[in-house]
């Protein structure tokens, strides 16, 4: 019978023995090591470091991107010719965004649209709304709609001209976020030392704070200065409307006329803005025709682009919305009236926060670093360009290419549209190809067609030869008058190039540092009488949205500052008129 004492003696002996062995000391070390190599902390994958090149598909600027990859996986992005915007820097995170759409019923959507096409008529048409016009996919839509009976291609207006910052010596920006996402940051900053920038804006935006001069105009009156500069509005009237002293406006106009070449930039480069530039003698110098890369001759049968406003109410039986690339968005309330009852609405999106909320069918599209496509001509691209967004990683099963879907409806084979276009460009023998990997520039006529395509599809850029600007355009002067008194506020958007969904790291800018306003916040001057942290609704002709108020003396009275993105673009029209109501 072993007694407890005997057991304790044995145990005591073993304990002493064990202490003389490595066991307990090693277990202590191991526990410390285990606590330092916590199983939950991910280990970065290792592999060969490679560089891949593409163009960014998050907005119309299409900056050239160099991706640092571990094996095939991009782990960081940087600009080839300069910097990227914060969204572009973290673009490689988007495929893994938790709110990314992955599933959709293609068959169901295709059948619904086929039925709508069968039932279509002159009063019940089939439409594609292309929010990033100017791409090769846009040509596919237009060709398909020309083949589909009663097809119509709707797109927001493209810029009326292209801008040549390198040639400018005086730039008057009427509220355009020139230094914060308007064009390619790398190109603008490269040209920045050459021109004096006057920013006319109600709010001291980022561009205004870095400009050479800020003209604080009354909210919504930026266009007044453009008209005054063009000589179509008397200076005295402009001073009354903007609140600026007459002398200051006169001085600005004098500087534009004497220290040129001058350039007037507005957030939307409309025909009216082009007319002001022409009045300043800028045609062929700082404003040039918007040039597109050549297209194959077989693509001549293509539906023209139509503005949403010109579409008759209730006349669309099926609407396919391509919001898979870029940052374009039109308020839903401007689209809804155009739909017939029981219209089929198919949204091609990669997130639920855009038109997916209103569509009858949502189909997931590939997101920026996965999607093969091209970028539209840049607003600051003087010559024609052809630049592809090259897939850096494979898109998941289940994603759909919107252009192929629409082409299939028309019986068109558009799988090789980009390659066909590249062949057409090569056939012209004009232009140059710049490969980013080695920085070399080659003339197209010295390249074989296969090599040309191979370079483009691994991230190279084709630029057309410089061409004559041609005759100065004559623009009919029929433009909108002053806005209604009903809307005492103007909405200022802080972050122009905000994509539908951004990397969760963007929280560093909005939550962890307040560098940029968060999407659920609206900033107002204390004089407007709102309390910080309370809720307010912004009401516009297009809808109503509730925000949390941030009180900020930097926001002038009469302006409400919001972040940016499709949720705000859904209620803000081009004029930015709004009312702010306490909740």
């Amino acid at each position, binding site marked *: 019978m072993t007694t407890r004492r005997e057991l304790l003696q044995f145990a005591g002996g073993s304990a002493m023995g064990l202490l003389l062995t490595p066991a307990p000391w090693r277990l202590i070390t*191991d526990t410390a*090591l285990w606590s330092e190599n916590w199983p939950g902390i991910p280990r970065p994958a290792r592999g060969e470091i490679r560089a891949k090149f593409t163009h960014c598909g998050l907005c119309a600027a299409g900056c050239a991107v160099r991706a640092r990859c571990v094996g095939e996986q991009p782990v960081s992005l940087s600009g080839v010719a300069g910097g990227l915007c914060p969204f572009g820097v973290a673009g490689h995170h988007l495929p893994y965004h938790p709110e990314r759409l992955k599933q959709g019923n293609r068959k169901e959507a295709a059948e619904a649209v086929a039925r709508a096409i069968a039932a279509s008529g002159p009063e019940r048409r089939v439409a594609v709304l292309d929010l990033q016009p100017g791409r090769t996919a846009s040509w596919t839509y237009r060709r398909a709609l020309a083949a589909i009976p009663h097809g119509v291609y709707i797109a927001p207006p493209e810029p009326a001209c292209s801008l040549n910052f390198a040639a400018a010596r005086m730039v008057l920006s009427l509220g355009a976020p020139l230094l914060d996402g308007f064009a390619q940051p790398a190109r603008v900053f490269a040209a920045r030392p050459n021109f004096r920038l006057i920013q006319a804006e109600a709010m001291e935006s980022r561009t205004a704070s870095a400009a050479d001069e800020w003209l604080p105009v009354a909210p919504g009156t930026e266009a007044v200065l453009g008209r005054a500069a063009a000589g179509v509005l008397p200076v005295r009237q402009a001073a009354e409307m903007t609140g600026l002293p007459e002398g200051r406006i006169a001085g600005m106009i004098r500087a534009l006329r004497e220290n040129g070449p001058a350039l007037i930039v507005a957030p939307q480069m409309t025909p009216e803005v082009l007319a002001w530039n022409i009045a300043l003698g800028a045609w062929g110098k700082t404003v040039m025709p918007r040039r597109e890369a050549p297209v194959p001759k077989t693509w001549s049968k293509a539906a023209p682009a139509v503005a949403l406003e010109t579409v008759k109410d209730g006349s669309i039986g099926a609407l396919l919305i391509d919001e898979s690339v870029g940052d374009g968005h039109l308020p839903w309330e401007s689209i809804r009236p155009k739909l017939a009852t029981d219209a089929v609405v198919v949204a091609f999106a990669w997130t639920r926060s855009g038109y997916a909320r209103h569509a009858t069918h949502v189909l997931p599209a590939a997101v920026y670093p996965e999607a093969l496509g091209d970028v539209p001509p840049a607003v600051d691209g003087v010559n024609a360009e052809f630049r592809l967004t090259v897939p850096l990683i494979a898109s998941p099963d289940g994603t759909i290419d919107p252009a192929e879907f629409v082409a299939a409806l028309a019986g068109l084979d558009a799988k090789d549209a980009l390659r066909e276009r590249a062949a057409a460009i090569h056939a012209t023998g004009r232009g140059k190809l710049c490969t980013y990997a080695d920085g070399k520039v080659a003339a197209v006529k010295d390249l074989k067609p296969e090599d040309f395509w191979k370079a483009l599809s691994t991230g190279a850029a084709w630029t057309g030869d410089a061409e004559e600007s041609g005759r100065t355009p004559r623009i009919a002067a029929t433009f909108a008058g002053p806005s209604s008194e009903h809307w005492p506020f103007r909405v200022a958007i802080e972050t122009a190039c905000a994509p539908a969904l951004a990397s969760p790291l963007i929280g560093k800018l909005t939550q962890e540092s307040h560098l940029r306003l968060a999407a659920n916040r609206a900033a107002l001057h204390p004089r407007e009488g709102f309390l910080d942290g309370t809720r307010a609704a912004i009401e516009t002709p297009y809808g109503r949205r509730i925000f949390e108020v941030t009180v900020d003396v930097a926001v002038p009275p009469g302006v409400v500052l919001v972040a940016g993105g499709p949720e705000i673009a859904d209620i803000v029209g081009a004029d930015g008129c709004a009312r702010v109501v306490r909740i």
Partner: protein
Amino acid sequence: MKRNILIVAGLAAGLGAGWAGFPRAIYNSRPQPVDFSHKIHIDKAGAKCEDCHAIREDGSFAGFPTVEQCGACHAAPMGTSAAEKKFIDAYVTPHKEPVWLAYARQPENVYFSHATHVKRAQLKCEVCHGNEGSADHPRPFEQDRVSGYSRDIWGGQGRPGMKMSDCVDCHRRSAVKNATAVGDLSCLDCHK
């Protein structure tokens, strides 16, 4: 008397468990995925270490060769062993990467540059990794069950250890050619 015997018996049991039993228990032994013979490749194929374990142009160390590199010679069987056939069927043909178990794998926060030690300091591979060339079969990979570290980190059997103290010892010996003196090294030189 009995008391002493029990204590002595306990002592013996403890010593036995700690010295003989514990090492067996604490390590999880796994074989490599392929029964690879270094000896055959060095003797018959005349390969040197850097032929398969190369330092890339940008200075990074490639580690284990990829199945493409093996497949460059072994697309078809070059010998008669069953191990080679199994390797070709399971890995080369389906282009599948074998999951090799790295004896010398350091924890994530350690930065070691092969280029600096092999090219600049002219260290031979055997100095840290032992004579792998003479092995006909790969050693099993012994991994500490608690910390996850490879047993090789503690060295032994003719191989030096790879703990931080072992690296510091080598850098301390001023007789070692080209070694950066310990006093000139900063923490971030070896850690990331």
